[in-house]
């Protein structure tokens, strides 16, 4: 184990996979000389050269589609989309091409493409630059959606993504790039998709999150323990498609209460999917309706106080738990 930051764990994963498999190459806006907007690719251009670490023009649709094409022709491209906000102009390639070519071709072709993108608000970047669209991507059959909360998982999941024969949307919360954690050194350490992690155990309530919201759940669990004498299961989904509902259901059947936490808008959001599945599979075990703590239904404001109010907080999670007792 080595302690490192999330961004370094992500870089290590890419480095190791590039060393392991000559079919892997990277492309994206400013991933080369600049080192990546969030410094995830720093140093890789020097190590691997411009053929395998390719700076691209600002053409999200073009480069994601190029990734699809290279994948069809036997390569394993990683396309970095600077932030999830700009994935919106590449949705045609992600949704109409990458996610369904295997199906539409009757299984003839497959698209081993890794799309990395930074997500989340909280940096006063305003409404166009603060999206959390994990749930939107999870909506599409054919895509795998990975949302790590810890550096060790980020590395294991990203390495696993490079070995997946299908397109993977790998989403990194901007607030977590600097977060530190233990990372396994073993170059064969992979984290399997569709396996949630119980990062904390308790008996009174199940808190479910992914990516940044896992940390809110964790802090809320601290507050519940210290201030209210309550203990919580905290479940980190790690991938939201495939989704490990079994772990969630097992926990809820024990705690009889659940709060689902995400940054994305509550209305039509992914937390609603989890709440519905809990209702379908653990209705008789519930002592209270499943609660959702999520982003407020507004475009993200620029003002600091307003933005803080628009995002879910650990206090909101604690409040939701207390109101269901």
């Amino acid at each position, binding site marked *: 184990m080595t302690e490192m930051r999330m961004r370094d764990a992500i870089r290590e994963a890419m480095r190791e996979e590039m060393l392991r498999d000559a079919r892997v190459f990277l492309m994206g806006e400013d991933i080369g000389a600049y080192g990546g907007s969030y410094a995830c690719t720093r140093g890789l251009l020097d190590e691997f050269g411009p053929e395998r670490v390719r700076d691209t023009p600002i053409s999200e649709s073009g480069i994601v589609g190029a990734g699809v094409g290279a994948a069809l022709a036997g390569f394993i491209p990683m396309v970095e989309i600077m932030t999830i906000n700009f994935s919106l102009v590449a949705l045609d390639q992600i949704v109409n091409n990458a996610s369904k070519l295997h199906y539409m071709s009757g299984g003839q072709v*497959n698209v081993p493409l890794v799309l990395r993108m930074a997500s989340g608000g909280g940096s006063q970047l305003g409404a166009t630059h603060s999206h959390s669209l994990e749930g939107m991507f999870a909506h599409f059959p054919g895509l795998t959606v990975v949302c790590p909360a810890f550096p060790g998982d980020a590395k294991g999941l990203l390495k696993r993504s490079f070995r997946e024969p299908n397109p993977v949307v790998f989403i990194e919360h901007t607030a977590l790039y600097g977060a530190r954690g233990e990372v396994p050194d073993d170059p064969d350490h992979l984290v399997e998709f569709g396996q949630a992690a119980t990062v904390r155990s308790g008996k009174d309530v199940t808190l479910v999150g992914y990516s940044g919201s896992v940390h809110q759940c964790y802090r809320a669990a601290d507050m519940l323990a210290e201030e209210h004498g309550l203990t919580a299961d905290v479940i980190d989904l790690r991938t939201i498609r495939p989704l490990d509902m079994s772990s969630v259901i097992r926990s809820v059947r024990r705690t009889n209460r659940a709060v689902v936490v995400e940054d994305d808008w509550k209305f039509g959001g992914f937390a609603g999917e989890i709440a519905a599945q809990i209702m379908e599979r653990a209705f008789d075990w519930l002592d209270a309706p499943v609660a959702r703590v999520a982003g407020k239904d507004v475009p993200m404001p620029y003002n600091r106080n307003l933005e803080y109010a628009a995002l879910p907080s650990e206090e909101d999670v604690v409040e939701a738990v207390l109101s269901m007792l």
Partner: protein
Amino acid sequence: MSVGQAIPTMVGEPPDDELQQRFLYEMLLIRRFEEKCAEMYTRGKIRGFLHLYTGEEACAVGAISALRDDDKIVTHYRDHGHALARGVEPNRIMAELFARVGGTNEGRGGSMHIFDVSKNFLGGYAIVAGHMPIAVGLGLAANLSHEDWAALCIFGDGGVGEGEFHEALNLAAIWKLPVVWFCENNGYGMGVPFDDSLANDVYKIAAAYQMPSVRIDGMDVLEVYSATQLALAHVREGNGPYFIEALTYRYRGHSMADPELYRTKAEVEEYRKRDAIERLKRSMIADGLIDEPTYQALVAQVGAEVDEAVAFADASPEPGLHTLYDHITKEYEGESG
């Protein structure tokens, strides 16, 4: 070759007798296949959107005949002709249109999405210009693997208005990719004449991306063939992409649902006088390459092949409902590929 040159010069030997025979046969096959599709659509055997290629046969046959087996093709949704010209079995294309398991895509794709990997036919794509970035990736793969195969990307004039067209041409140009862009300009994007939708001629727009760009007669299969040969030689030598605008015309409506309110019958008749099949037939007769009985024998042959395709498609079962979830993702076996 200068940028924006209007007509390319012939390269190498003109197609020999045997090749011309094959052109004639393939164009007849496509025409007959498409006519049969129209019939099968009216009889309810083919459903969904059906875009026929009648009138444009010289584009598919001329361009695709110039390819090597290891070159890769992506095309738009008006794709039966391209698949046939590439040698995809008519039986399996028809079965796909009938949505049967014997279809190229096991009934998952339909008319607009024909795939046959064994022929390096990497799909018909139904989002206008959505496959153009994919061609960039194919070209990139060819370069990264230091192989000299090329990608042929076929699309309609309507694609030129899409952002993905411009992103793709720019990327192919700056990275010097072996992509031949082949625009089938049939004068219309659905009912909109291209004069009303583009600020400049297609080949001039492409020329702005610093690649050789030519406009050719897309209803002359020999010209299409030699222009594409020239283009392929150019891209294989590492000179970057090449653009061909082929002027052509579709005889039928945009799709089977099109009442054709936007053009006159006289206009269609005008183009029919320039019919690519008739033209090739006449010149081959003049050159003594075929006679009328040989021609009629070819017509009978493609008729029989298309009938056989219908019989094959009819006999092929529908996919079982238990296969609904097949092929959503490829099984993970510990390695990608």
